[in-house]
């Protein structure tokens, strides 16, 4: 029972992903790859926000840390990508622990603004620390991923890597969701005080969620660096952080399927709107707003509502009422 959902998700990703990949033209394959990479990042954001309720507007900074970590190790230090990836991920996780302890004492929009500040600071540092990051010119000529002599070049081969990674990350996320640790995170989001009152160490849970999200972000960042083979500060701005959050909300926060759907939709939507010419961003914004107003539980929520047509359940009400004096 415990392994059913994770294996199902992994299988679905691989099978459906493979099917889609076999019919898509080359140009859309590139987008599909980018969707898969974003999906990995958004599954991470789901831990921090969807489960634990931490509003992070700095997720792209962790993606960037993974990407730059890999870029620097492979270009300046000549490491193999297979070694550089775990190193970059571990380094990002360590930074997440350091940043998390002071930052996670904040809540709500204070946390949102602090993480926003984090992302902006990351942009300023990567743009100006030319010796390490190449400044606004970025780091180019990142080596290709290869297994021995087989180079994983081209969209098709890279997609195999991306899909396998996504499948593994999604499966692990599903395992977490069904475990006591997942429930703990959701409990902390719902009611921190009640969580403390059943012995949950709220600080530890938040840091864990935050670090897990950073790890997923770093994995996505490494994949991005290996796919595009070029990293620059503009790829990891706070606008990207907001996009990741929007992907999660649109897909359905708190769900892994929602994270993936949202990533795909918001990666392809700008393309589909491209026929609108210069007005397409405007319509993108309008569409986002409409979705937020009319579909606050996202695509997954819509699916649920359609399925539960016969048995109407009211939306969950918060039972966390402030204490009165007695």
């Amino acid at each position, binding site marked *: 029972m415990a392994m059913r959902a994770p294996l199902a998700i992994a299988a679905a990703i691989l099978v459906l992903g493979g099917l889609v990949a076999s019919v898509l033209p080359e140009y859309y394959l590139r987008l599909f790859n980018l969707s898969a990479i974003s999906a990995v990042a958004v599954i991470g954001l789901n831990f921090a*926000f969807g489960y634990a309720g931490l*509003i992070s*507007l700095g997720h792209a900074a962790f993606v960037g840390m993974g990407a730059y970590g890999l870029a620097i190790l492979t270009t300046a230090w000549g490491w193999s990508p297979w070694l550089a990836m775990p190193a970059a991920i571990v380094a990002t996780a360590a930074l997440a622990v350091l940043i998390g302890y*002071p*930052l996670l*004492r*904040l*809540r*709500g*929009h*204070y*946390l*949102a*603004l*602090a993480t*926003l*500040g*984090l992302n*902006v*600071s990351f942009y*300023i*540092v990567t*743009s*100006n620390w030319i010796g390490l990051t190449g400044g606004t010119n970025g780091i180019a000529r990142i080596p290709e991923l290869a297994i021995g002599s087989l180079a994983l070049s081209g969209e098709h081969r890279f997609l195999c890597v991306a899909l396998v990674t996504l499948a593994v990350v999604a499966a692990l996320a599903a395992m977490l969701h069904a475990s006591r640790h997942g429930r703990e995170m959701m409990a902390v989001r719902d009611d921190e005080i009640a969580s403390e009152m059943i012995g949950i160490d709220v600080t530890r849970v938040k840091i864990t969620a935050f670090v897990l999200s950073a790890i997923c972000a770093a994995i996505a960042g490494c994949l991005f660096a290996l796919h595009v083979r070029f990293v620059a500060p503009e790829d990891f701005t706070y606008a990207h952080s*907001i996009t990741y*959050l*929007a992907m999660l*909300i649109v897909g359905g*926060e708190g769900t892994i399927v929602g994270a993936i759907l949202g990533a795909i939709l918001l990666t392809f939507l700008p393309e589909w709107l491209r026929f609108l010419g*210069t*007005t397409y*961003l*405007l319509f*993108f*914004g*309008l569409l*986002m*707003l409409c979705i*937020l*107003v009319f579909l*606050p539980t996202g695509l997954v929520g819509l699916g649920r509502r359609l399925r539960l047509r016969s048995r109407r359940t009211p939306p969950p009400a918060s039972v966390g009422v402030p204490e009165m004096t007695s």
Partner: protein
Amino acid sequence: MADFIQLLVNGLAIGSVYALAAIGFVIVYSATGVVNFAAGQFVMFGTFAGVVTLINAQLPWSVAYGAALAIMALFGALFFITVYLPLRRGSIVTIIIGTVAVGIIMQNAALLSFGSWPFRLPSPLEDRVVNLGGAIISTHALGVVGVTALMVAGLWVLFNRTSVGIGMRAVAQDLQAAKLMGLKVNRLLALSWVLAAVLAGVAGLMLGPMWFADVNMGDPIALKAFAATIIGGFGSLPGAIVGGLFVGLSEVLGASYVSSAYKDLISFGIMILFLLVRPQGVFGEKIQDRG
């Protein structure tokens, strides 16, 4: 010394603009609980309202400024109806992303209307300068500081001496109680947004001659306004002023004396420091379970 005075005045001028943007942001947050991530775009709209009335319509100064502010007031009301009212029952994140989406809409609407080339917005004080002990100071910068001081005084009168302003404060403190007292709550909430839009408009009109009128100017301003409110204290008007001036001064002085490249990092670094050490800012109330 002369250089320092020049920098000081410029810093105060920029800081005044940030302060006005921050005040608008704080008014909306206090009254409606919304963290308006499109706050920077409001200022940009103010600048471009000036472009429409001053450059395109070639209206005389006072008429042009009045018309621009009227446009902003209308925009504030429109925003209240089309964005705030539909979104207000959503979660914090929904509102954050919602206001970000509106910001995107605003920015692209401006881009489509005006193109991406920056405009030079004129000032009634033109390019005149005064000489203060060897320092060459633009009269416009002095004008900005003066106008801001006047507006702050006006706001003080509004919030402390008029029933409308007191009503707005009541709504900000306790919405339910205000309703029970018979206050026309929706009207006061709408007024908060209108006021915020007008303040952003003033900020934009004053900023235009100092920078450029550029459709992309919104985001950097928003970030500075956020930093200002965090440093000054999130729900506090005096805090917004102090925070705005501080951010403006640290930007200008930091660029000159520390590093031009990392000047923005100074403001954000200080903002993050405040968030970690004293999240309520200089003037804010102690936050227990905010958010």
